[in-house]
């Protein structure tokens, strides 16, 4: 299933997943529009569906396969794809405007980046929640530390049991697909992206039980039963929140200035 290695399943293309986000995508790694996200990849792929540390061998092999391409590449043809700068004018003129892609494309114009990312938290829109989780994960990955990410991860944990909602414009229903099934799959895309984000934080912070958060979720995750998983996540949310906050306090990085206006030099 090569689509697992496509831009759809990559954190650098925040607003799309295997079942979420129609039309063009936007790659923050290459600062480029992605015209065919299911058919595009590159050597920097960082999967959304699982934490990086449980699929690292496969991802390394993929990086090796595409190592000689500096930018985006066609997944099946292995031909380089030219970088396309985002143009708000162009998308309006060509009927391809997408509010989330439009927002994400402004990322490098803003500072500090973490404040921009915080704007995607909250609410029940599943696609927006996917975007937030992917943004947090790439922020952590770029900074390679938990110190500048704990506040973003606390917000991620805060919405970890939120019921993601989708409308038909948000999901990818291909010819022959049952929209209800796609809706359900879209939900799992969000849930796994969120949980994997928490686990990657656990990896960076050295918090073993957060790194293996899935072991704390009893039968409901393996049964892919969202209503019961949601109840378990609600319980774990409080515990994870306390633990992440306490760990940050222990290390003296938990909002060290009362006004919290500083920007650390590890920020992107």
């Amino acid at each position, binding site marked *: 299933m090569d689509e697992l*290695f496509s831009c759809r399943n990559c954190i650098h293309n925040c607003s799309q997943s295997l079942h979420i986000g129609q039309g063009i995508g936007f790659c923050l790694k290459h600062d480029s529009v992605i015209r065919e996200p299911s058919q595009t990849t590159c050597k920097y792929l960082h999967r959304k569906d*699982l934490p990086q540390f449980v699929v690292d061998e*496969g991802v390394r092999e993929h990086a090796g396969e595409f190592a000689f391409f500096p930018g985006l590449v066609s997944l099946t043809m292995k031909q380089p794809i030219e970088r396309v700068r985002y143009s708000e004018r162009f998308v309006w003129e060509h009927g391809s405007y997408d509010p989330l892609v439009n927002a994400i494309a402004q990322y490098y114009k803003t500072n500090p980046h973490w404040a921009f990312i915080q704007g995607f938290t909250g609410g029940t829109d599943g696609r927006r929640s996917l975007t937030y989780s992917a943004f947090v994960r790439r922020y952590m990955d770029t900074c390679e530390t938990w110190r500048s990410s704990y506040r973003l991860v606390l917000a991620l944990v805060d919405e970890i049991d939120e019921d993601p909602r989708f409308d038909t414009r948000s999901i990818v229903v291909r010819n022959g697909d049952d929209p209800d099934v796609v809706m359900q799959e879209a939900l799992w895309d969000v849930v796994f992206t969120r949980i994997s984000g928490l686990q990657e934080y656990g990896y960076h912070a050295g918090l073993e039980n957060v790194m293996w958060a899935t072991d704390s979720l009893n039968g409901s995750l393996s049964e*892919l039963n969202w209503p019961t998983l949601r109840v378990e996540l609600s319980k774990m949310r409080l515990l994870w929140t306390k633990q992440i906050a306490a760990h940050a306090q222990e290390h003296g990085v938990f909002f060290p200035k009362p006004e919290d206006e500083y920007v650390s030099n590890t920020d992107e």
Partner: protein
Amino acid sequence: MSESALPNDQGLRPYYRRDQRDGVSPPDLSKACTYAEHIVHARGKRTQFTSVSLDLMKIRDFGDTDYRLKREETERDGHKLVEHEALLGELQRVARDEQRAERQRAIQALRYAMRRLEGLVRWNFDTSAVVRKDLIPWARDKVRAYFTRV
């Protein structure tokens, strides 16, 4: 269940694969792994297994050409077809009983395997006379003999 998943005259359900036009992609017979590692591609795109499905409609992203597994020949020659239900059963067991990475990969693999009505072929070729670096090209022709275009 779609029409393509109906059993044949021997009561055996056909399994399909969608792959590239020039033939089914070869496995990497040197790469032993678990079912879950194969399904989520945790160890790369090729392993000792070949994925097949009970329904071609469920595996559209695998390629542009449709193939059917010659399952009688496959099993007659000593290769193992892991049926869809058996695969789900094993993934459910790992998801229930194991921990950490194994468990996590099994949970995601379960989701993908259910959606794709997936089964697996575990090839049992005698590779003792094949140099490791030649295993993939060697396996290409061997494996393609067990598939027919539909």
